C-alpha cells in the first residue's frame, strides 16, 4: 500500500489503516520528538498529540511532499512548541549550550577496558547535550536520512543553516572526543582506529 492509498484508507475511517500508519511512522515521530524534548514522561503524550494532529489534518495532505516529511513537520512543530513552553517554565533540566565538562570528568572513562558500546553510549550523551537545533538536524539528516530540502521543509531553516549546524555539530563533537581521549588518557575509542 503506497502513501496515497494509506491516506485515503484512513480518511475513509479504516482503523486498521490508521493503525498501520502509526506503526509505520511511530519510530520517526519518536526520534524527532525525543531528540527535541528529551523527557521520557512527556514523550508519549507529545507523540500521541502528533498522531492526533496527523489524523485531524490528514485531509489537507495533498501529496506534494512525502508523507514522512509531512508527518515530521507536524512532529517538529508540536515538539518545538512544547520545548519552548518547558523552557519558559524553566522545566528543562539541561543547558541549551553544549556542556560536556561533567561528561569529561566521568570517572568511568578512566577504566582501561571500556567496551565499544560504552564509547558509543558516551557519544550519544554528547549528542543529547548539543543545542536543540543541532540535535534536530542530526536526527533528520543522519538517522532519518532526509535530504537538505526536506529538512528545510520540515524545520523551516534555510539549507545553508542546516549545513552549517551539521558541520558545527560534527566539529564540536569531534573536538570533544579528541579532547576527552587525550585528557583522560583513555583508549575507549580504539575500536575506531
Amino acid at each position, binding site marked *: 500500500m503506497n502513501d496515497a492509498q494509506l491516506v485515503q484508507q484512513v480518511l475513509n475511517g479504516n482503523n486498521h489503516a*490508521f493503525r498501520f500508519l502509526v506503526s509505520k511512522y511511530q519510530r520517526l515521530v519518536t526520534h524527532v520528538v525525543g531528540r527535541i524534548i528529551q523527557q521520557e514522561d512527556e514523550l508519549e503524550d507529545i507523540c500521541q498529540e502528533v498522531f492526533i494532529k496527523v489524523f485531524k489534518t490528514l485531509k489537507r495532505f495533498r501529496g506534494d511532499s512525502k508523507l514522512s516529511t509531512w508527518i515530521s513537520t507536524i512532529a517538529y512543530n508540536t515538539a518545538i512548541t512544547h520545548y519552548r513552553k518547558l523552557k519558559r517554565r524553566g522545566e528543562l533540566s539541561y543547558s541549551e549550550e553544549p556542556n560536556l565538562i561533567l561528561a569529561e570528568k566521568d570517572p568511568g572513562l578512566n577504566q582501561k577496558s571500556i567496551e565499544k558500546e560504552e564509547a*558509543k553510549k558516551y*557519544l550519544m550523551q554528547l549528542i543529547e547535550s548539543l543545542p536543540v537545533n543541532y540535535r534536530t538536524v542530526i536526527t533528520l539528516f543522519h538517522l532519518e536520512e532526509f535530504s537538505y530540502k526536506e529538512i528545510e521543509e520540515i524545520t523551516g531553516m534555510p539549507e545553508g543553516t542546516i549545513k552549517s549546524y551539521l558541520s558545527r555539530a560534527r566539529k564540536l563533537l569531534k573536538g570533544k572526543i579528541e579532547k576527552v581521549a587525550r585528557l583522560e588518557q583513555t*583508549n575507549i575509542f580504539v575500536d575506531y582506529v
Partner: protein
Amino acid sequence: MYNEDRNFDTDKLLKEAFTSEPEFKLSENFTDALVKQVERRFAWKQYLREFAIYLAVILGIMLVAAVLAFVWYDVTVSGWMAFFTKNASLVVGINLLLVFVLFADRVLLRYFMYKASTE
C-alpha cells in the same frame, strides 16, 4: 593506556553514533491506546454529524409546516409574533428541551455507550 600515536577515526565513530537509535521508547500499548482515542474521536464526530442532519431535517419540516400554515390557514406574521412574545419563555424552553433530548439521544448516550463498550 592511551597511545598518542594511535589516531582513532572520529568520522567513523561519529557516523556510527549519528545513525544509532536513541534510547527513547514508547510504551508497548501506545498504538492501541492511540487508535482507541482516534476511534472515539471519529465516533464523536460521526454522532455530531448525524445530530446535525436530524436537526436540519426537523427544522426543515417545521419550516414547511409554517409555510403551509401561512398558505392554507388564516395565519399572519403579526399573529405569530404576538404568540411568540406572549409565550417567549415557554417556546424557548420547549425548543431547548427538544434539542437537548435529541442531542442526548443521538450523541451523548450513543457516545457513552460506545465508550463503555470499548473500555
